């Protein structure tokens, strides 16, 4: 590499670092995700999923930033996000509990399990605990009917639930 080339390269690197220091962490995250997945419309879901992985939800700010980074109307980003139940646009806790409410789980004691969770975390379905750690949601068939009732906590599955079992699981999460 010649001296001129080296100089030019250093300048670009400095510019990138400089730009990054002025970017908010979410802006940096979105830029990195767009670099990884691309900026075409087909990349919108992977980019949004990437933000949800970090932030647990898509804030208005993230959606506007995604729109800017990917050169899309913000309304399109919002419209797409709100279609999908795993792309929450409301602030969510660190651990999102999704309790299956479809028929087999409902028949096999989902409500008792749900009461146990609500009682323990002092939140109702759709709410987030005051400390911002747990959100409780109901969801449609998780594909675990042979081991009903079932739930997800973030990406982890829990099956054959009973009130006792769910209390143990949550106790473990509380110390995480």
């Amino acid at each position: 590499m010649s001296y001129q080339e080296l100089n030019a390269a250093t300048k670009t690197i400095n510019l990138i670092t400089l730009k990054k220091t002025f970017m908010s962490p979410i802006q940096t995250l979105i830029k990195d995700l767009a670099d990884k997945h691309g900026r075409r419309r087909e990349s919108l879901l992977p980019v949004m999923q990437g933000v949800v992985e970090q932030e647990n939800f898509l804030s208005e700010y993230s959606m506007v930033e995604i729109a800017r980074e990917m050169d899309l109307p913000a309304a399109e980003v919002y419209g797409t996000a709100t279609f999908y139940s795993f792309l929450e646009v409301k602030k969510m806790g660190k651990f999102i509990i999704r309790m299956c409410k479809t028929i087999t789980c409902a028949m096999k004691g989902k409500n008792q399990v749900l009461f146990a969770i609500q009682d323990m975390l002092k939140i109702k379905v759709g709410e987030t605990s005051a400390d911002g750690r747990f959100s409780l949601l109901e969801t449609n068939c998780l594909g675990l009917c042979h081991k009903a009732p079932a739930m997800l906590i973030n990406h982890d599955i829990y099956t054959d639930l009973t009130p006792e079992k769910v209390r143990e699981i949550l106790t473990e999460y509380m110390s995480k």
Partner: protein
Amino acid sequence: MATSYQLKRADFIFKNENDWEEILGKILKQSPQELINELISSELKGRGGAGFPTGLKWKVASETKSDKKYVICNADEGEPGTFKDREILQRVPYKVLTAMVACAHVIGAKEGFIYLRNEYWFLRDELEKVIDEFEYYCKEIKLDFSIQIFMGSGAYICGEETALFESMEGKRGEPRNKPPYPTTYGYMGKPTVINNVETLAHTYTIFKYGAKKFYDLGVQYSRGTKLFSVSGDTPKPGIYELELGMSLQDFVHEFGDGDTKAVQVGGASGFLVPRKKFADTAIGYQGKLTGISLPTGGSMMLFNSSRSMYNVLDNYLEFFREESCGQCTPCRVGCQQLLIGIKAVKRGEKPANYLDKLLRLTETMQYTAKCGLGQSVANSFSSIVENFREEMIY
């Protein structure tokens, strides 16, 4: 008339055979035409619910001229009571991937995708590893084909093939009008073969053992085996591979708890069969000469006499109301009104014959809704309301 088919267990799909390289090598040596013929003569039909002949699907896509084509594995498995695709991807992913490479070879695709529902995120890392092995293999033999996982984001409707394409294109998962069909206008407007996970896994059996082996199983119009996801009031919930064509009577004899009142065949979008019709119902695709033949994506939910069929219907309708994409009025408004309607009848706010009005509404939905979701609400609604009318009222 009672059907005479017995329950015949089979073990192909989950049989662990560490020979995919050998099988794939054998497949790639054959011409697309030979492979298509093999599939057509096996009479394999799609296992995702619709039952379209797989060989024909591959054939049309292979004949369509285009600079780009795609192979997509539909792993959105969202039908209530279905959980077999997850098990296939967990236990024998290499069969599905072998089939995807075979399909790419047949139609001339360079890119493949597995559309995996978000609920199955926990499968992802292991699946990536197997994909890496396949991509390495393809590179070695200089076959230009790559496979990517595309994660869904929690929407049952994205299992419908055209909604799935919309979703992959970064949009709301709203079904398109058909035709055009995916084989000519699919993902990104290019010819696409989209198959269910299980359909792909069956092609492994066919390519390995020959079409005849597969064809000899099952009955006329319903050849081969099928995975059944058995849940509800049964002493042995789980996944079972059975030959198609058995009577529901035999099925209940094997899986019931002795007190089976009804079986929901095909998930929330399928039919509820009451006890008195078990003997006359066979499980397979349409076209059998005797009795009723019910197709199924594999969901079999058993209910015993302690269950209220009103609660079952209420649960299904809530499912449809939430999962309707909202794009067309008959389905969006229809699902809401059906739910409001049955609640009103139950509370006595509407007379019993209001149920007949609701039945006519489902008929309208069947004819006017844009996609299979709205069209199939009538299946469970009418089969439950007609067979368990008293339970809806009292």
